[in-house]
């Protein structure tokens, strides 16, 4: 971990009020990842894997502790700048592809560039290139309903990378895929991650997939235990 760059979590806690009781999901996570590193997070259902990912991705705020990305505390940013920060720095791949059914594959990949339109010239060309690389160059005008599950998830990977994020976060990216498709998607993730030197964090139940990651951590009772 470097002080000025990469991702750093210090004492991150997250708890929810459930009636009169307090449910503590994350009990103090310390974590540091440099550019080009990858981390697989495993743990049983309900252990807080997705919560951790959402906090890292600035979708959710920690109850306590700090998050720093490239030396910047995103949660100190006002909402508009936080949104722009997320748009430029973070890329997400979800278990459900969440592709927009009314758009073509190419349009779906372009969508993240539209949150702050006008910033990136050549977005469409880059989206086409990404889709070529994920093997969907021939399916640009297809709608999600016309793709297989693996193809949809590959399109989702392309969408996650279209803004050239420094942080690529995957929440059970292969959870809905068969083994073969899952392996292909993971191959692709690694390939693109390495090419772009992103920080890759993936939450998964699959030990097989976790085993391919350079670093692995398990969430146990709200704490991160790195293997």
């Amino acid at each position, binding site marked *: 971990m470097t002080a000025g760059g990469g991702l750093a979590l210090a004492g991150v806690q997250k708890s929810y009020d459930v009636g009169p009781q307090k449910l503590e999901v994350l009990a103090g996570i310390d974590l540091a990842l440099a550019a080009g590193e990858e981390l697989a997070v495993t743990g049983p*259902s*309900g252990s807080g*894997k*997705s919560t951790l990912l*959402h906090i890292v*991705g600035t*979708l*959710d705020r920690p109850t306590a502790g700090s998050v720093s990305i490239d030396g910047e505390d995103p949660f100190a940013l006002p*909402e*508009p700048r936080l*949104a*722009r*920060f*997320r*748009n*430029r720095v*973070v890329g*997400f791949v*979800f*278990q*459900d592809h*969440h592709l*927009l*059914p*009314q*758009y073509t594959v190419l*349009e779906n990949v*372009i*969508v*993240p*560039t*539209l*949150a*702050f*339109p*006008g910033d990136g010239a050549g*977005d*469409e060309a880059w989206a086409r290139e990404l889709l070529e690389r994920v093997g969907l160059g021939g399916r640009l005008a297809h709608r999600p*309903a*016309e793709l297989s599950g693996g193809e949809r998830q590959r399109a989702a990977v392309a*969408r996650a990378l279209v*803004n050239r994020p420094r942080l690529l976060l995957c*929440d*059970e990216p292969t*959870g809905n895929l068969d083994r073969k498709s899952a392996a292909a998607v993971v191959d692709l993730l690694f390939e693109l991650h390495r090419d772009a030197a992103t920080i890759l964090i993936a*939450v998964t139940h699959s030990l097989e997939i976790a085993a391919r990651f350079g670093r692995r951590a398990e969430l146990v009772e709200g704490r991160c235990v790195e293997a």
Partner: protein
Amino acid sequence: MRRSLTWYWRAHLAVAAGAAVATAVLTGALLVGDSVRGSLRDLALDRLGSIDAAVVSERGLRQGLADDLARGLGGDARTAPALLLPGSAVHGETRARASGVDVLGIDERFAALYPDGGELDFEGAGGLFPPVYLNEALAGEIGAAPGDAVLLSIQRPSDVPRETLVGREDAAETIESLRLSVAGVVSDRGPGGFTLAPHQTRPLVALVDLDRLGRRLFGRAGGRRANLFVADLGAAAEAGAGASGTTAAERLGTALPAALTAADLGIELRRFPGRLVVESREFVIPPATAEAIGAIARERGAAVAPVSTYLANAIRSGGREVPYSTVTALEPAPAAALGRLMLADGRPAPALAEDEILINAWAAADLGLAAGPGVEDPAGAADADPIELDYYVLGARDELSTATARFRLAGVVAMEGLAVDPRLTPDFPGLQDADDIAAWNPAFPVELDRIRPRDEDYWDRYKATPKAFVALAAGRRLWRSRFGELTSLRIAPAGPKSDDGVDGLAAALEAELPRRLDPRAAGIGLRALREDGLRAASGATDFAGLFLGLSMFLIASAAMLVGLLFRLGVERRAREVGLLRAVGFPARAVRRRLLAEGAAIAAPGALLGLAGALAYAWALLAGLRSWWLPAVGAPVLFLHVEPLSLALGWASSMAVVLVAVRWALARLDRVPVPALLAGAAGADGLDRAGPAGAGARRGRRAAGVAAAGLLVAAGLEVWTLVSGRASSPALAFGAGAALLVAGLGGFAWWCGGPGLAPNALGRLAAVGMGARNSGRNRGRSLLSVGLVASACFLIVVVAANRGEGEIDVADRASGAGGFTLVAESDVPLLSDLNRHERRLELGMDDEESGALDGVTVVPFRLLPGEDVSCLNLYRPERPRILGVPPEMIARGGFTFQQAAAPVDNPWTLLEGELEPGVVPAIGDYNSVLWILHSGLGKDLAVVDESGAELRLRFVGLLSRSLFQSEVLISEENFVRHFPSRSGYSFFLADPPPERAAGVAAALETGLDRFGLDATGSGERIAAFRAVESTYLSTFQTLGGLGLVLGTVGLGIVLLRNVLERRAELATLQAFGFRRRTLAGMVLAENGALLAAGVAIGALSGLVASAPHVVAGGHGFPWPSLAATLAAVLAAGMLSSVAAVAGTLRAPLLGALRSE
């Protein structure tokens, strides 16, 4: 099912509320119909008291007829005589004036027919002048209170038609003025509301003492007369109706002939030795009466000799003349008892050819004809000077002219026998009582300086005995009028010459004539007032239907809302449905189960809606008594509830709701079970239905609909242009409706198409994405757009029809036809208002008359009747009929909506008679269509004066004209079928707009004794338009409520869309989309739907209203229309903002969790 009902109670509550709204609106509209009918019925019955029927006479009949009628009706029937005359009232001090007043002369018998009639006391009332009771409406109109003096002006009825030479009177002398003291003000609902023409507005009634009124009108001798006999048939009516279905009019009709005498029919029988002379109080015997008398006499073997006597201003021959003589037309008597004309030489006079004349010996001597040619020297007759008769001819406008007829002298008649029978000349008003000619007082000019002493001698000796005789055919040709052609019938009984024979014949005529003659031919009509009133109370307009129509958009919105809510509820239960299907429930069974659930939800909702219906109907009626009062004219409508309407409303609403629920379920069958199990029952579920071709097929179908709609619209437009019917509203509406369908089809096609690229709008990407998203759920989007487009379509069409612009009344093609003034008089005028000297004769002063210089006044004959315009809520049974004079037909003008033939001037279609008993007629399009429920080429049956059916066939329908209250026929047909209606009561005048007020004032003040009211034609048309535009504003209001429901629906659709897409929105948020951007995107999505709906609806609405848009006469309300459409957009966007704010405020993140 009970578990489901309770588990999903929130969703069900919304559905039940929707059902309640639909029921409230639908049933409420039915209750408005009930209320209108019930209120009109109450009003009619209140105004009638216990009166069932009436005998109405053109002339004054003896009051005793009332008792005779009561005896004939038997049982506990009660009758009362009355005098009912139109007139005007003026306040004695303030001079406040009211025309159109019903002056009703009554006595205690009439008052006894009303529960509160006892308050009328004509004997005990104090006051400076004789008492009069005013009804509230009249007292209010002239501001009169008890003790005040009022002046009533009424036209004195005349036995002799005023449009004949002998019946002619100075206009001023026909008006009787009564100064009276107001003894009290009575309710408009008792005897003070009595009227023969049901109308919801309050009649203006002045109640006076019957005998006092009679004495003023008919003199002390003839004072006990009445022209109205009302009857309470009592239990007899009910028993009769119950037993044989006999109507009140039929019962009265049965009793009437037995009660009538020959005198009641205007016939006077004069007995002479060996003969009977039958005369008419009308001077000429009406043709039907003459025919009936002749038939009765001949059936008894009697000889009948018709006689026609007229006045000759001069009998001239060889430069000498005899002034002012009567001339009789007759045939040689068929029986000696009738008397014969004998020539001076003792031979019987010969039968006359049509160009021959006999002169009596006195006149022959005066003319120097001695014994006369043709007697001693018949061959020389051809060479003799012709005998010329000058006689007056009375024109249609009371203008007198002198005509001359030439005859050959056929002989000189000895001064004996028939030749000196003074009864050859009936009583000549103004002449018969004069001791000498100088004392004549006829209504035609007499040059007294032409009267010589010898003429006075003749008068002293022979009175009005004729001095010349012509053939009956000649008399008929020269002097016949529409009132008849015979002045007497001389009848000799068949038996020996005896008085018994004459008496027997007279008795037979007395008995038979009332039975044989249709009383209507003698101007005596029967009116089943109660039955007619109840029938008329069913209304000209079906208010239930009208308000159903007006509320249709509201009902449709409620039904759509129910369908939508139910559908969303079912979609939420997709897994349950999927599970049931998966475990083996057939699709139909699942559907039935859900339908039953829908019914179970809707039934109590609809029951609750019945309470809402009462409130809705009450509110609408309150509206009709206040804001929408112009639509009904009088605040007389109150809530009436028929249980049948409640039942019908509930059942109909349930049917509507269940159709909506069934529609909501229809889609469910097409979603595959796995998709249902995955929780997708909406568009996503259908997407999972698989084959990509389905969407394409739907797209093709939508494109087909769009193309077909466009084709139909284009076809109709081309037809409109080719056929030259650019102003046809039906074609335009068809084209507009087709365009609406095309627009919706096009939108559906667009939904399935590639749409706008999300990045096409650059920095406005969120807007572009929203627009693109709007087509995502085609069914919901189409529903929303359809709702908004339909609403906007109606708003544009309604706004166009309101025609808010001022009309140019001076324009001949306008609804005023170029006439700026409309006037109506209570007393018909016989004179021509276009001539200065005639105006002076009518009582106008020089200044008043001068105001009319250069103004053309077109007079119309008027048959009083019921208003056939939308201003009358009652169903008209006896329409007001106007006789259109020839100059109006020739002038033309106005705009015809439809005409039976393509002629330049459709008014000419009024000329002639189409077939026996069928005459051409013109009416206003709106009145004919909506109030009379008739149309071009269709017949309206009325009864003419002879009692025969007269069919008025519509040959032209005017567009939004000032003639909405009446039906028009030609004056020629009018006088043929209603001969006894004398004079003109309806006038159109064409002063330039800047002079109109001055001319109106001159007419009103100069002719106030005739009760003449002049109003601007623009005001008259505006009154009609006020009804129309009030209904349209009612429609807009109810449509607006529908739109509110529609926007609620839109909000729900949006809410649902957002909820379904929470994950999608969360994803976008994860990629850096701000909440505000997402809100903008969703709003843009809804805005696109709204904009599409408004654009499609407004454009097609404009096409549908093309004739109004391009019409120069009506200003098109662009600003208000634009404001309304903007309000629709704003209301829609506001509901969207509310929905979006509610949903996006909640955290979206949960939707992304995979664990």
